[in-house]
């Protein structure tokens, strides 16, 4: 199996030393009921390498104070580490300017920021917002709330049986009332990589801004927001080997400046009196209150770690894992893969005939294999495929071929129990 796949990817397989990388992740040494942990729930949250853990400890041990406030040593150290993290994130997604990188608590928070800051200011009654069937609830519900408040309308791009967006239908949804597009870069439920660059170009030709939910893309492929030309790009730290409670909203400076603040409070103001408050410049306008400083710095360390490995090498290795798992599962009777798009990232959603996904999850757990079971916060996708739920294996660069095999063996044992 390995040899065959190496032949498909001759330029990288030997250079990618997964065992060396695994050693960077203390949690991967865990045993679950005596069995080695096979962690295949990376789309829900990834694990943290020692380098990031160490950075958090160093910050908390010798650098912590509140930022942007006092003139003392620690405050200056913390502020400069926090702003350095912002620049690391800027470079990681190739944003033009560091002020275009806003720290949020995660993707959900970032999307809500755009809904409140942009949507509530610029979207009016009768306007239309285009979303897709693939969206995570976090890129549906905020827009429904806005549509209800404003009397706006949501139009939805359908998908085909492979889980790919129907781009012709997308283009036909545009009319003179279209004001906004929200689309995910990579589907968390199916793994589909959407042609966002093409979709953005089409929207821009009609003067419509586009928000890309990049939560599942940033950990798995090289993202260049200038190349995509997206107006907004949202992602989370904890899916990117960083801490929870931190995420990023990238926005084009001109748009961010035109937007109204989302949360009011300290740090987001220039001056405050009871007569008039002047808001701070971006990005601070959108970072009210004390941010999760340690988490932001930890995320900076995480993207350093990932950049050192190289996002292209990561994407290639994960693609090998996905190809091998897909190939083996396709040959298994009674196993159905949901999401067979031509362009996929390392997500494998599947069902086993006659076995409910929750039973699959519990039985795989008995083998030490951690997968997600449920609707993946993407109920419209489940409805499209007429299933209540699926099991989902999602890979990271630190997963090995042996773990793919453990998944396959696990699925066989589930089928045996229910035979």
């Amino acid at each position: 199996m390995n040899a065959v796949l190496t032949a498909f990817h001759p330029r990288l397989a030997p250079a990618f030393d997964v065992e060396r990388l695994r050693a960077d992740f203390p949690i991967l040494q865990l045993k679950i009921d005596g069995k080695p942990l096979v962690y295949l729930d990376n789309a829900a949250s990834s694990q943290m390498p020692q380098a990031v853990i160490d950075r958090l400890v160093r910050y908390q041990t010798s650098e912590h104070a509140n930022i942007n406030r006092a003139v003392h040593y620690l405050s200056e150290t913390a502020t400069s580490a926090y702003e350095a993290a912002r620049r690391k994130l800027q470079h990681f997604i190739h944003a033009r300017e560091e002020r275009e990188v806003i720290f949020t608590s995660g993707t959900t928070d970032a999307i809500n920021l755009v809904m409140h800051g942009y949507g509530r200011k610029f979207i009016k009654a009768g306007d239309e917002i285009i979303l897709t069937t693939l969206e995570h609830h976090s890129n549906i519900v905020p827009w429904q709330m806005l549509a209800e408040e404003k009397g706006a309308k949501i139009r939805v791009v359908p998908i085909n049986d492979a889980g790919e967006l129907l781009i012709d239908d997308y283009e036909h949804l545009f009319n003179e009332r279209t004001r906004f597009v929200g689309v995910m870069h990579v589907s968390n439920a199916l793994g589909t990589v959407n042609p966002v660059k093409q979709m953005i170009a089409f929207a821009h030709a009609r003067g419509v801004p586009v928000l890309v939910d990049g939560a599942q893309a940033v950990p798995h492929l090289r993202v260049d927001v200038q190349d995509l030309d997206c107006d907004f790009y949202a992602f989370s730290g904890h899916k990117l080997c960083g801490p929870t409670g931190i995420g990023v909203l990238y926005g084009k400076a001109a748009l961010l400046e035109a937007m109204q603040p989302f949360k009011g409070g300290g740090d987001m103001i220039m001056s405050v009196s009871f007569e008039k408050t002047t808001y701070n410049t971006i990005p601070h306008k959108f970072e009210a209150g004390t941010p999760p400083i340690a988490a932001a710095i930890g995320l900076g360390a995480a993207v350093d770690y990932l950049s050192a490995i190289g996002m292209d090498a990561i994407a290639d290795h994960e693609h090998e894992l996905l190809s091998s798992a897909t190939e083996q599962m396709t040959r298994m009777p009674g196993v159905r893969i949901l999401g067979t798009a031509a362009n996929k990232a390392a997500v494998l959603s599947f069902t086993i005939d006659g076995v409910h996904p929750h039973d699959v999850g519990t039985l795989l757990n008995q083998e030490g294999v951690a997968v997600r079971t449920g609707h993946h916060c993407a109920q419209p996708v489940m409805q499209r495929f007429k299933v209540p739920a699926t099991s989902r294996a999602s890979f990271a660069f630190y997963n090995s071929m042996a773990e793919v095999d453990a998944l396959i063996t696990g699925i066989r044992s589930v089928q045996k129990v229910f035979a």
Partner: protein
Amino acid sequence: MADYRALYQEVILDHNKKPRNYGTLENASHHAVGHNPLCGDHISVALNLKLDPERVECIDGIAFQGESCAICKASASMMTVAVKGKSRTDAETLIQEFLAMATGKLDLDSPNLIGRLAVFAGVRDLPTRVKCAILPWHTLHAAFNSVATASTEAAQDPMHAPIGNA
């Protein structure tokens, strides 16, 4: 620990594969549908309450159907077997005992009506699966409290009726 491994044992797998009292019940006096919004599972329970010669309310017939995982389906199947022919009072006691067992609060050594249902004891070690095992029992409780035109509005939903102390 590791007790939960026993969950997927013969008796549960058998009830999952060949659920007893599966289907609909003609002229049911009581009925309720239970939902597990987290996983989309749903189960409906219909039953006939009758007065026995001593004027005690008894479960004369019971049936269930729905879509769910093996734990839930087997739990529903074994529940119908356990309560069929029992008095409503005994069935309500059993509901409370089952809920207590699933959450690790029942002393199985003290007198109880659990019997063969003890195969579900291991679910207490799987907090995310407890809801699967108890859904049928909540639904049975809701059915006991159902009225002919049971509302699906949350405030009046029989699914939200309090169940003892469990």
